[in-house]
């Protein structure tokens, strides 16, 4: 196809020039848009690594000036920040483990064709993709269960994801041959043993992927922290960061007027942003392709 294209164009120089111009335009535009996606972060990173004075005199663009780690030291030195970080890590780890457990528990039985009531149970789960109680009924449930201001309110309600269950189910069906499980079953192995000894080892990649889905989702979300948590020390990192950004926005002029502040709020804010972004950016290169696959599996189901 390519050869024919070039052959044709070699006869028409005008077409060739237009094609080249189109190529340049496309390569340039896409590259520019891609740069627009990272440069903002480069700027924030540069700011966070620069000295107060340089940031205040607005000399920092994409490269740090007077490189130093003072801002990070004060972020890490802030006990409330560390508590939020610890809370977020704790919640994320438990959430991911529980989410994965529930996903496997739901997905595996639903791949067994001999299971009675398979379709009804499946619909029971999938309905949750389309319907929900909404903010207030969710909140009142937390209230009734006495989970307000408890870490459990950030773990239990979102722990089961029908979307991830569908991905898991599809993936078990395609990676584990039916015959393998059936023969183990006929040999007298229990279903749980088959799951643990045969299915799960074969599904390691998808389990890793879904763990990342759960972990990244939990790390980024802060809506439930705003709704259910009112005690400052229990705020998730994102919630805390949001508060920090919001408060300094409204009192920006006031804090700028005080020359005695130890560090420029802009620098501290930059450091906090990078601090919360870092874990995602570190895992990003590894997770990207799995997420792309997830989109595709999710799309197929519809």
């Amino acid at each position, binding site marked *: *196809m390519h050869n024919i*294209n070039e052959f*044709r164009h070699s006869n028409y120089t005008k077409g060739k020039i237009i094609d080249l111009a189109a*190529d340049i335009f*496309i*390569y340039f535009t*896409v*590259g520019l848009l*891609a740069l*627009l*996606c*990272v440069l*903002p*972060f480069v*700027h*924030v990173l540069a700011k966070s690594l620069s000295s107060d004075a340089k940031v205040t005199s*607005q000399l920092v*663009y994409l490269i740090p000036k007077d490189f130093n780690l003072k801002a990070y030291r004060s972020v890490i030195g802030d006990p409330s920040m560390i508590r939020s970080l610890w809370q977020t890590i704790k919640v994320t780890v438990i959430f991911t483990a529980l989410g994965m457990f529930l*996903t*496997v*528990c*739901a997905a*595996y*039985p639903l791949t*067994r064709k001999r*299971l009675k009531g398979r379709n009804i149970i499946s619909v029971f789960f999938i309905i*949750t993709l389309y*319907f*929900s*109680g*909404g*903010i*207030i*009924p969710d*909140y*009142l*449930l937390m*209230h009734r269960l006495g989970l307000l201001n408890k870490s459990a309110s950030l773990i239990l309600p979102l*722990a*089961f994801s029908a979307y991830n*269950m569908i991905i898991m189910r599809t993936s078990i069906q395609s990676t584990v041959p039916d015959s393998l499980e059936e023969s183990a079953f006929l040999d007298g192995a229990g*279903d749980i043993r088959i799951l643990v000894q045969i299915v799960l080892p074969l599904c390691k990649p998808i389990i890793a992927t879904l763990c990342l889905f759960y972990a990244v989702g939990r790390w*980024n979300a802060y*809506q439930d922290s*705003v*709704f259910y948590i009112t005690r400052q020390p229990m705020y998730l990192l*994102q919630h805390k960061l*949001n508060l920090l*950004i919001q408060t300094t*926005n409204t009192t920006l002029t006031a804090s*700028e007027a005080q020359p005695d502040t130890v560090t420029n709020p802009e620098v501290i*804010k930059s450091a*906090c942003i990078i601090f*919360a*972004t870092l874990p995602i950016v570190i895992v*990003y290169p590894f*997770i*990207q392709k799995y*997420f792309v696959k997830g*989109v595709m599996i999710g799309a197929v189901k519809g």
Partner: protein
Amino acid sequence: MKTKPMVHKTMKTKSNNSRRNFMYYIKRDWQLYLLLVFPIVIVLVFKYFPMAGLIIAFKDYKILKGFVGSEWVGFKNFAEIFSNKDFYRALRNTLTLNGLDLLLGFPMPIILAIMINEIRTLWYKKINQTLLYLPHFLSWVIIAGVAYQLFQPRTGLVNILLRNVGLEEIPFLTENTHWVFSYVLIGVWQSMGWGTIIYLASITSINPELYDSATIDGAGRWGKIRYITLPGIRSTITIILIINLGRIMGSSFERAHSLGNPIVKEVSSVIATYVYSAGIQAQKYSFTTAVGLFQSAVGLVLVLISDWISKKIGDEGLL
């Protein structure tokens, strides 16, 4: 003597028979059912209970009286919604922001996907895709934080640059109209890369022979995009459009909450943030549940209508 009970057994009603079968299945597959108990309980409690909790939209919910004990008030809460000024503001903002999102955000991934598809240098394509997907993985808090670092008056990078070239500052996030466009464009920026995935996959599934024959017929690059690529991804475009139309009543709490600020309250309050402040903060539980129910009901109707339209004009529907 021997045959009699056999006859008797088969003569027994069928339900009895199937009940024994059911017990038989439970006994045979008890381990599978045991596994299912965990997710079923969690889903029942945390997804279905709140759905049942929607009944308080038709009650005057009092915490002390509970879901069952609170009094029925019929459609009073819904009537109240439409006489509430703050609700109208939230509704107007939700529709405006989502409408603009759709207008600017919907075509962008399609254009971008077609452009990415035209890139033949593999490494260049890969790098750009990786960078373009990045914003999707970051939380709205981080995106809002970065946005304020860039667009804030006085200290924001963009405003510094504007001043440096002798232009006036632009109040991107601190003036109503500017904020609306900043909100929308930041959304487009965040989702354009990720949105290309589905279209790129759709393009890959187009039969390559079509392009070959088009080349032989003398079609140029634009011709191929116009007559092969676009028709080839038409059904995907329709489906994504239906999904987006269904979301036009929806609102992301996190996006509006993190990008908003008190100065632009008038345009940044959307239904989700309104439900939060009137419901959780001001404790008007029944009223705000009614608001939420109204929102999802309209959303559902919109999906059904757009699905119906797309089937009418000959595309495949979503449902």
